């Protein structure tokens, strides 16, 4: 399996980045995880021609060819970061590579809550029709007290959390397998999805 891990912040120091790096090493025998950064991506600005800037296109291509996506999100003001939101807007406005793509959400925070509210927002966001990601349901991985969570070598020191993450990841592997099987047997009009437009939906709604 090949996964893309997205660091959900543009900050230079991030425990979510550490978490993804840890997952890459820890699950190396189960999957190949490529950790992608969003810090150099431009801010979303609704370009008229709906074409992504090269950096966004590059990320989009990686997502397109991956078997699944892992997003590690911090929590800023009870929600995801503007930087992560901007990337999602780029993807939803231009290439829409997340359609039918399996997504695992993880998150770390300095406090006790482990980005729980940001993760809930992220689920709702990825559920939007112009994104239509296949988010793994029912299991969430929240890493609280993340500043103390990693040792110098980047290992996760909370053993209960290691176990939880392992279970969560195994579940994701299964989820990816099953979802991709299901999607293969049923016909989904992905091209149609990629052209989804709120304006069009609104017009159709108004006409009917």
């Amino acid at each position: 399996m090949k996964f893309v891990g997205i660091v959900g912040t543009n900050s230079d120091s991030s425990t979510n980045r550490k978490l993804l790096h840890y997952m890459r090493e820890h699950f190396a025998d189960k999957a190949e995880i490529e950790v992608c950064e969003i810090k150099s991506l431009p801010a979303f600005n609704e370009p008229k021609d709906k074409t992504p800037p090269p950096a966004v296109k590059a990320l989009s291509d990686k997502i397109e060819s991956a078997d699944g996506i892992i997003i590690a999100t911090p929590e800023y003001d009870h929600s995801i970061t503007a930087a992560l939101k901007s990337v999602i807007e780029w993807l939803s406005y231009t290439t829409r590579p997340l359609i039918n793509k399996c997504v695992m959400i993880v998150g770390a925070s300095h406090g006790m809550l482990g980005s729980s509210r940001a993760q809930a927002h992220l689920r709702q966001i990825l559920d939007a029709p112009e994104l239509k990601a296949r988010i793994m349901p029912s299991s969430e991985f929240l890493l609280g007290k993340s500043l103390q969570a990693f040792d110098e070598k980047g290992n996760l020191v909370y053993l209960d959390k290691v176990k939880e993450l392992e279970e969560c990841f195994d579940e994701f592997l299964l989820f990816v397998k099953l979802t991709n099987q299901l999607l293969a047997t049923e016909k989904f009009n992905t091209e149609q999805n990629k052209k989804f437009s709120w304006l069009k939906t609104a017009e159709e709604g108004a006409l009917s």
Partner: protein
Amino acid sequence: MKLIGIVGTNAQESYNRMLLQFMQKHFKHKAEIEILELTDVPMFNESDDQSNSDIIQHFNNKIIEADGVIIATPEHNHSIPSALKSILEWLSFNLHPFDGKPVMIVGASYDVQGSSRAQLHLRQILDAPGVNATVMPGYEFLLGQAHHAFDEQGNIKSERTIDFLESCFWRFLRFTQVANLLNVPEEITYEPGQYCVTAPGHNGDLPMVVTLSMDRIESIDIDTEGESEGIADVVFKRIPSQILEGQTLNVDILSGASVTSNGVIDGVAKAIKMAGANPDVLRKRPKAPSAVDTSDAQYTTDVVVVGAGGAGLSAAASILQEGKKVIVVEKFPAIGGNTVRTGGPMNAANPQWQNTFDAIAGESHTLQEISAIDESTIDSEYLDDFKELKQQITNYLAENTGKTGYLFDSALLHRIQTYLGGKRTDQSGNIIYGQYDLVKILTDEALESVKWLEDVGVEFDKHDVTMPVGALWRRGHKPLKSEGYAYVSALQKYVEDHGGVIITDTAVKELIVEDGHVSGVIGTGLNGKKITVKANAVILASGGFGANTKMLKEYNTYWTEIDDDIKTSNSPAITGDGIILGQSVGADLVGMGFSQMMPVSDPDTGALFSGLQVPPQNFIMVNKQGKRFVNEYGSRDKLTQAAIDNGGLFYLIADEQIKKTAYNTSQEKIDKQIAAGTLFCANTLEELAEKLAMDPTVFKQTIADYNTYVDAGHDPEFGKDVFDLKVEIPPFYATPRKPAVHHTMGGLRIDTQTHVLDSKGQKISGLYAAGEVAGGIHAGNRLGGNSLTDIFTFGRIAGKTASHDINLRKDSNHGSNK
């Protein structure tokens, strides 16, 4: 009423913008709505703080001034746009203009939802503690199918929609009035008195006394005795001073010291509660004026000194003595650098004075040993001095045969001991020893430095001549008051009384160079303000790099390994800044690979005086496997290298009897440290071994063997030959120890007049260096008590030289003008 409307998108075309423009027009008789656009707002990035940029400040100020804010949000992917999220992140990071601000949410979208889901997210976001807006409940205005909603003049077509918008808006006007009542500062009265609370220190709680009058916090006194942990000192000064200045608890915490910062604030809050008042009122007050002052500052002076430790303050004092003006720039809020932490006296040979003391056993033996050194092993520069010293020793010994005699000393003995003590070979076989011309100045001028310090106001204890740890000879001059503080406080007073200026909280980032001449510094001060000091000369006196692990590792050639998490006994300010500044203008470096470690330091803090510190005859050092690994009587270097070879961490073992020989502690402190897990205690050796994750059998065998060596007076394993107590009476103790960085010997290459030299040996015009920032003197290892001699001697010289050079330059400029 004045309101701000924020267009929640940076898109060129936006129905949300149209909606706000309509409201602006439609409600112009009820309120003045100013519309703010997100177009120029940069993406929020916590690593690139742009809180002070024009655009963020504009938003901040407009929102602070407004009675309320209307946010019109589109819906992107079931949430608010990233552009809107970004400005909210900027305005909840270092600035918090939304705190308590009444906010109305509206939104428009293509479909029938009218941004309903984005509005819910926005409510949750505005409710986050960093934003803390007061959002109007109910009255949800959702404009669905927005592309059909407006006519060509931008007016909403549907009368029913306008009616509902009006009722929402009128409600918001009323809501704003009511909500802003919560923002009116509350009056506060205290029951006057002194309230005893505590502040968290490194070694447990510290007593703090808060004095309150009827309407003011009059003083905050924290008893920091026993605390010397640099950054904490800063907290204990900065936080109380800002609380007092602003009569507020709205104080920024210090990065790297959040627990202590919050502890002090919470302590004062507790005192306020005890005085019958609500501390939240003070948390809502504005910050102290000095805490929000961001105006850049420019200064002009004759000489600017970087660093307000012993070297920098001595330089400043001598500049003032030369009739020049000086500004000292210090990175930390507190001055004193490493000097204020020093516990030892300063070395200076003063035979006249020392001769009045009796010699003690062993001293003549030491002199004989020095005399007996093979001359062929003495490096040529030092050979003449060595021969002369031998003559001095021979004469002294002849004069004192058969009697105790007096304490001998001479500048030559000091010089040769500095040379011998500093001679080391590194891992790759390079030999280093002190540069002769600099060591000569150090030892010849040392006494002059003592006298100079006396003139400046330092009082020395003439009744005692002491030997600092690792000094090799009794020539220590000890101030009457506590050592480090005595020097720093006297020098500070002298500098300030004579018109010198000390600017704290300012880290120098760059040197100004004009026409190849170093002519000032640019630094970053409090709240990010830019501080520029123009001068005719710059003296670097910013200390070594003991607190910069990356630099230590990069340059180290002496130790086999330096741990990633090595601690230091130094001030955390000592990060090699001056060395980097010097390099930026081409300065040469010397002896950078050599650093000095304190082998028995606290593994977590680098502090020397925690746990059980006993005389070496009672030390039993065991490694993590529970085995002895070194002769406990070894030199600092030997103990350090042995510890490194054994993985760094080791333990000092004591029993009930040995505990009584500890000179640094009390039962109360011991109990606290055991409770905190920084000292281990058990009733049996097995139990202690288990606590230390050692094999109990191995550990028990080690102790049993050691006890037999004590009985025999002989240690066949490591050759320890002085013993006192065995380890036999429970409870047993283990103090974890690890080497910590104590002094860095390398630094900028200087000449005897402290000019900084480039790689060709040429003076860098206008640049001087003194103290630990400079290299070449202590070479491979510094004698205890010599760093004070170094800073006061070369600091003084730097001030003089810089002043004289300014005069020379003036003269030559006059000459050329003629």
